[in-house]
């Protein structure tokens, strides 16, 4: 028991809703529905929240806010799209400024359709979200207890969505280190990542069927470029990053030299590559805050 399902704290955000669904969300807190009897608290603070209730479709203005709130929520977390606009874009779907439902920006776990969604449906959606929350927690716990049995495998193209999600979770920690939101790893889309599979080799670290780490390698002449080392925040500091680098090196038996790069303030990944035997040979400024550091290693 984690108590997760007994104390769901909610943050509610209006992406571009007409306020119909928002009024219904707040109606859930009133004496008639009183969701507090289920332990629900409307926190208004992403760092305290477990469930992200979003109403309305995504437009240019709300996209960054949604992503920001989602990133600030501690794991495990669940997203509930309330109302048809949040679910699919609704009647605004074709508008020039609308990118679609909430799932066009962040992964959505529960969809509550309706225009406006009725309070009963919203309460039901929250209750279903609790199941998802509990499941996510169990998966992580099971993975943590199986830390010794990490499998390092060649990733398939079908793993791309999982790897993208991992890249974004891990990249977000990196963004905090750099204090820079526009990292290439965070900007990549699914399509771009799938295209990368044609040119690069991906290695995944798997625990209990869940991908917790990934790295990619690409050949250029005699050199293998190692990049995109991502490890899920829960599993960092367990030497998984170094093992991933080791595995990807094995995938290129003909390479004479390996090259990797990382950013200057990111001490953790510099340390990781240092332990894997890499040495710095070139730096290149990226933004005022970040300097890319290139590291290399000769095959022994």
């Amino acid at each position, binding site marked *: *028991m*984690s*108590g*997760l399902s*007994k*104390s769901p*704290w909610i943050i509610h955000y209006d992406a571009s809703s007409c306020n119909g669904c928002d009024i219904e969300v707040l109606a859930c*807190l009133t*004496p008639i529905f*009183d969701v*507090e*009897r*289920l*332990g629900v608290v*409307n*926190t*208004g*603070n992403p*760092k*305290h929240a*477990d469930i992200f209730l979003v109403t309305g479709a995504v437009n240019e203005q709300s996209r960054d806010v949604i992503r920001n709130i989602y990133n*600030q929520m*501690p*794991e*495990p977390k669940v997203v509930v799209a309330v109302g048809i606009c949040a679910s699919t874009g609704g009647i605004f779907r074709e508008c020039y400024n609308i990118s679609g439902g909430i799932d066009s920006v962040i992964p959505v776990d529960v969809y509550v359709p309706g225009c406006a969604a009725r309070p009963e449906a919203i309460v039901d959606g929250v209750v279903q979200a609790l199941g998802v929350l509990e499941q996510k*927690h169990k998966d992580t716990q099971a993975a943590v207890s199986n830390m010794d049995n990490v499998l390092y495998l060649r990733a398939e193209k079908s793993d791309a969505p999982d790897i993208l999600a991992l890249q974004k979770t891990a990249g977000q920690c990196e963004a905090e280190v750099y204090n820079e939101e526009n990292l290439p790893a965070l900007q990549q889309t699914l399509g771009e990542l799938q295209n990368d599979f044609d040119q690069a080799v991906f290695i995944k670290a798997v625990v209990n069927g869940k991908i917790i780490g990934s790295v990619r390698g690409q050949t250029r002449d005699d050199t293998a470029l190692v990049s995109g080392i991502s490890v899920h*925040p*829960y599993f960092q500091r367990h030497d998984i990053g170094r093992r991933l680098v080791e595995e990807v090196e094995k995938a290129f038996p003909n390479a004479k030299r390996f090259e990797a790069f990382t950013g200057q303030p990111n001490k953790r990944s510099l340390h990781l590559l240092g332990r894997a035997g890499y040495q710095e040979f070139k730096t290149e400024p990226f933004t005022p805050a970040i300097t890319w550091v290139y590291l290399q290693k000769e095959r022994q």
Partner: protein
Amino acid sequence: MNSWIRILIYLVAAPIVGGLLAGWDRRISARMQSRQGPPIRQPFYDVQKLWSKQNIVVRRSQNFYIGFFLLMVIFTGALFFGGSDLLLVIFALTLAAIFFVLGAYKASSPYSFIGAERELIQIMAYEPMVLLTAIGMYMVTKSFAVNDIANHPTLLVLALPGVFLGFLYTLEIKFRKSPFDLSCSHHAHQELVRGITTEFSGRTLALIEIAHWYENVFLLGWVYLFFASMPVLGVAMSLFVFVFVILVDNVFARLKWQTAIRSAWIVAAVFGFGNILVLSLLSAKPAIPAAPAAAIAQPAASRTVPAAAATPALNNANVIAQRN
């Protein structure tokens, strides 16, 4: 009862009692708003959940401060229930509050900053009255030691009605309830996001919750001290005060911080200081027999307080004895 046993009971029972009180608080509030309300054990579920959440930090040291906040709150309560010096208890309490503020300052977020600043203002608002309460209790019992105050044969509240009212006002601030929930937005007001606790998540937030439980039990213990000669009445009044604070919380809107600090100081000056002034005027006439009484009380006090605390406490006692 041995003071060590009392401390042990406090350490074990305070989080349980404090958590149940928090549960009742939410339940009673809900009933006052004609809602069903969460189960009584809800605060425990909350803490259990927070314990299994990811801990996101801006700076790692912010959690360190919160750990110390919890430690100091527990230390405060242990001193109090161990029957130690009331002044030392107040210093430890203030130190705890300061660590909480430092933790919030450490997380450089504007909401956290505003929360921290308002918490400091609240400390400024309640501190005079808390000190006057200790002084008032000394005036009646001639001792700062909680043991001596608790064993005093008369009902303290009869001699200190003004101080009691002032202390009640302080409790409204200490419990972070409306009209004084300035630093930490509970309930639905979210203009400060979550104020002082905005940047804390996961286990750290759970530690803050637990610290509040310890703190609340300690504060209600202090209410009990006013009625210590009649234990049943004391417990009943502690619970009544708790319900009263909840009622006030549900009845009042939030005050501006300027009003909060001004009103708190006026209450401290009128009720607290006025009460003490009257006491000192009344006890001024039999000044000659009162002096030896104080002299007897002092060694009794020094026996129970730790050696380090004895000196300032005695100095303070002398100052007040001279004033008498």
